[in-house]
């Protein structure tokens, strides 16, 4: 029987977290040293959690597939991190950050969780400054802020266009300090492939050493997954090449419910796709929308001329340009939330106004440069402009950038309760790997906030509430049958992959999956397409297991084998994403169903029937997953149609 109790404490919104902490169980310092915790992933959430747990006295084992914890993909986050500091005196508050986040998420997230997120946001900035994170400052020496999509205040702290990097290096530093102190052990180039459950509780993981190929078992009293999102299901995304869902997916198959898998975010400002050989999409920070103006040619003929190269974009007269975001959403203009901006770009391109390959719109800094000067723009966005030029060979100071939406973030993930525990006791999920805080759409600069909130300030408390009952559980031997069985399971999977000896490469399957996902489970979805996607993914999965070709050896560094294991899981998750999108007969946030929209083409929610979290239970190979619903109760916020006009 699945228990979907969110365990959000009763009481007024602003007191829930205080109340939780006051009433929770704690583990005394001496007992902490007897308890082992595994943290998988070293991004913002994983590194901060592992470091904080180490500081508290737990014995932590940290795992990452990269060669160093510092390389986790949080590092690529550009724009910034939100906090309700109100340093700009523009009327910000914890409540407003909470409200913007709930509204931005299109009312599909938990009030209690989101309020807590807003509440600890300020502590994050304090913590990071203490760690020496060099946030941008004003001439007076105080911290600077910028504004981001979906908000009418400036609450985003940033470190040029490399905020994620600076925050991650801060957390990585804290992590390495614990390594020095002997409280954390780093296992780099080691990938998790299965979860071990003993007597109904998560008690360890099975990993593969990516250099030697050795399958290894690790015990812990609790397991924390901080393994990020599953955007790579789409093949082309802004995710790192190695980012994958395997740890979360294998845990799902072991009993953890997977929530809202169809909620993925399509980021509006990415460099457009330009060729078949392309391996990934590059994000241009949303912060660019602060000063850049988005437009397409008003007339299709002009768009055609620009596409063919006979008309230069900068030569198109002002009155022939359609600044469609400013036109449609005068209140928020270019700073509407991501899902809205993405769909608007798709709509213009589908109508034939696209530039570049036809699937691109302009992001123009002409006016900003004229107003503020090139130097100011260079200070703010220099590295982004440079990056753009290196990739496209176009100089954005001279000619407008071209952008198009791309898969960027997954709001869905493992279902967790208020304590960040999944439906498997002892298995926690934090950061992007869980589903909890962003609902159906995440606002810019909120992912960094959530990752660090979970890692520094939430999990270290809530995990104690669980571990307090485990202080007398001795360390277990990895010779237990549960470990042996899970280990054999992984070994078998690896040999199966290598022994298919088919004719097609892993990447070719991944690309085909990506096409299905992008066409049917992408920015605009409809019933027929989703049903088709389910069938096509099932067929592709069968073909994969019959015809994939994985060269090399089992017990060796084998990049193709690593990829194959990940793609095998994407092929299963892809189907669940389509199923979830199919069952949700409404449009909300990043999930847009063609059948459900307002006459103006905006997303149309159905609060009566779909104000719930869709949590899916794995029922075994080849069987349909079962849907469980956690109904979302909004006690403090009134559900409204989102309006950015």
């Amino acid at each position, binding site marked *: 029987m699945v228990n979907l109790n969110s365990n959000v404490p009763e009481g007024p919104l602003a007191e829930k977290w205080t109340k939780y902490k006051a009433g929770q169980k704690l583990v005394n310092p001496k007992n902490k040293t007897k308890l082992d915790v595994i943290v998988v992933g070293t991004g913002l959430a994983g590194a901060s959690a592992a470091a904080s747990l180490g500081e508290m006295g737990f014995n932590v084992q940290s795992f990452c597939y990269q060669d160093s914890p510092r390389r986790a993909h949080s590092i690529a986050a550009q724009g910034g991190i939100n906090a309700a500091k109100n340093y700009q005196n523009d009327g910000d508050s914890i409540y407003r950050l909470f409200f913007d986040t709930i509204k931005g998420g299109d009312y599909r997230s938990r009030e209690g969780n989101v309020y807590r997120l807003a509440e600890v946001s300020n502590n994050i900035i304090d913590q990071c400054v203490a760690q020496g994170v060099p946030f941008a400052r004003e001439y007076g*020496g105080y911290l600077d802020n910028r504004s981001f999509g979906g908000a009418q205040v400036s609450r985003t702290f940033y470190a040029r266009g490399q905020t994620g990097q600076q925050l991650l290096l801060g957390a990585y530093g804290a992590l390495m300090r614990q390594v*020095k102190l002997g409280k954390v052990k780093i296992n*780099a180039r080691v990938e998790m492939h299965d979860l071990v459950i003993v007597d109904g509780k998560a008690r360890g993981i099975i990993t593969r050493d990516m250099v030697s190929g050795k399958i290894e078992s690790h015990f812990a009293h609790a397991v924390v997954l901080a393994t990020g999102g599953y955007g790579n299901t789409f093949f082309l995304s802004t995710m790192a090449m190695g980012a994958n869902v395997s740890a979360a997916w294998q845990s799902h198959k072991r009993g953890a419910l997977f929530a809202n898998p169809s909620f993925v975010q399509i980021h509006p400002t990415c460099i457009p796709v330009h060729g078949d050989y392309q391996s990934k999409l590059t994000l241009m920070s949303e912060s660019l929308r602060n000063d850049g103006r988005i437009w397409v040619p008003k007339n299709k003929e002009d768009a055609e001329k620009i596409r063919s190269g006979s008309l230069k974009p900068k030569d198109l007269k002002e009155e022939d340009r359609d600044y469609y975001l400013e036109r449609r959403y005068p209140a928020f203009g270019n700073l509407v939330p991501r899902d809205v901006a993405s769909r608007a770009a798709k709509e213009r391109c589908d109508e034939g106004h696209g530039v570049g390959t036809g699937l691109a719109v302009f992001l123009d800094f002409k006016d900003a440069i004229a107003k503020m000067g090139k130097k100011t723009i260079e200070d703010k966005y220099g590295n982004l402009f440079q990056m753009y030029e*290196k990739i496209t060979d176009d100089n954005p100071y001279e000619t407008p950038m071209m952008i198009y939406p791309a898969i960027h973030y997954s709001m869905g993930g493992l279902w967790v309760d208020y304590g960040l525990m999944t439906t498997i006791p002892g298995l926690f999920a934090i950061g992007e790997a869980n589903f909890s805080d962003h609902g159906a759409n995440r606002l810019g600069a909120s992912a960094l906030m959530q990752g660090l909130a979970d890692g520094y300030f939430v999990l270290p408390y809530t995990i104690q509430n669980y571990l307090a009952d485990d202080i007398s559980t001795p360390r277990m031997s990895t010779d237990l049958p549960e470990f042996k069985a899970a280990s054999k399971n992984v070994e078998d999977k690896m040999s199966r992959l290598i022994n298919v000896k088919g004719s097609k490469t892993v990447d070719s399957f991944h690309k085909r999956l990506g096409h299905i996902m992008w066409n049917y489970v992408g920015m605009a979805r409809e019933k027929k397409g989703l049903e088709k996607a389910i069938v096509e993914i099932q067929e592709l999965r069968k073909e994969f297991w019959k015809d994939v070709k994985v060269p090399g050896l089992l017990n060796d560094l084998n990049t193709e084998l690593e990829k194959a294991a990940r793609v095998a899981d994407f092929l299963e998750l892809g189907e669940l994403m389509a199923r979830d999108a199919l069952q949700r007969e409404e449009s909300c946030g990043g999930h847009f169903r063609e059948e459900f929209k307002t006459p103006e083409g905006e997303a149309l929610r159905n609060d009566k029937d779909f104000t719930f979290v869709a949590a899916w239970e794995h029922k075994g190979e080849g069987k349909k997953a079962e849907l469980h619903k956690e109904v979302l109760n909004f006690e403090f916020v009134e559900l409204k149609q989102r309006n950015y006009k």
Partner: protein
Amino acid sequence: MDLKLKIWRQKNQNTKGKFVTYPVSNISKDSSFLEMMDVLNESLIAKDEEPIAFDHDCREGICGCCSLYINGRPHGPDEKITVCQLHMRKFKDGETVVIEPWRARPFPVIKDLIVDRTAFDKIITEGGYISVNTGNAADASVIPISKEDADLSFDAAACIGCGACVAACKNASAMLFVSAKISQFALLPQGRIEAKQRVDSMISKMDELGFGSCTNTGACEAECPKGITLTNIARLNREFIKAKVG
């Protein structure tokens, strides 16, 4: 475009490697260097050969994974980029391209073009942080920091730990990497408290790991994808003198 690639192949740390020549054809000028490598690997798999192993992850120039020494330069023939940001338009049709792994004693080759850079983590472990526990922090605006210092600190902190400085240096010195971390904290008031201890232990570890010393040639600065400058090395030297003499 068509190219001739001479690529270092090595089974593992214990075997000897050699250069193998691979021709590639019909490469788009707009593809990235790593996408060109992907195309080559796909063709190798089709021929039942093992693909070339190389480190890469974010493919947007920030994770610091990619680490190829191309035609005698770390990250190849372009300025201030990583390999994943290098595009084929920087090469000529028909060109021979030599691809080697980073070469340094503290960076042993693991396989083909992949090297082990955990030496960098070991240096950071010795003090590349400010010792503050979670939850201790005062309000972020308590200590104002001049914009100039904050900016300089950021410039140093922009290091991605790719190791191009070590690869470029004729002495395989890690001074630029270490100086970036030292500088980041030396420039901030919160970093001053442990400054002496930090520089002492990090340098001690750097030496122990077998990196060479700095001849001030500037090769590291020229090849650093993030534009970390030699001024940081001077600051590191200063910090070291302060720690030892001051």
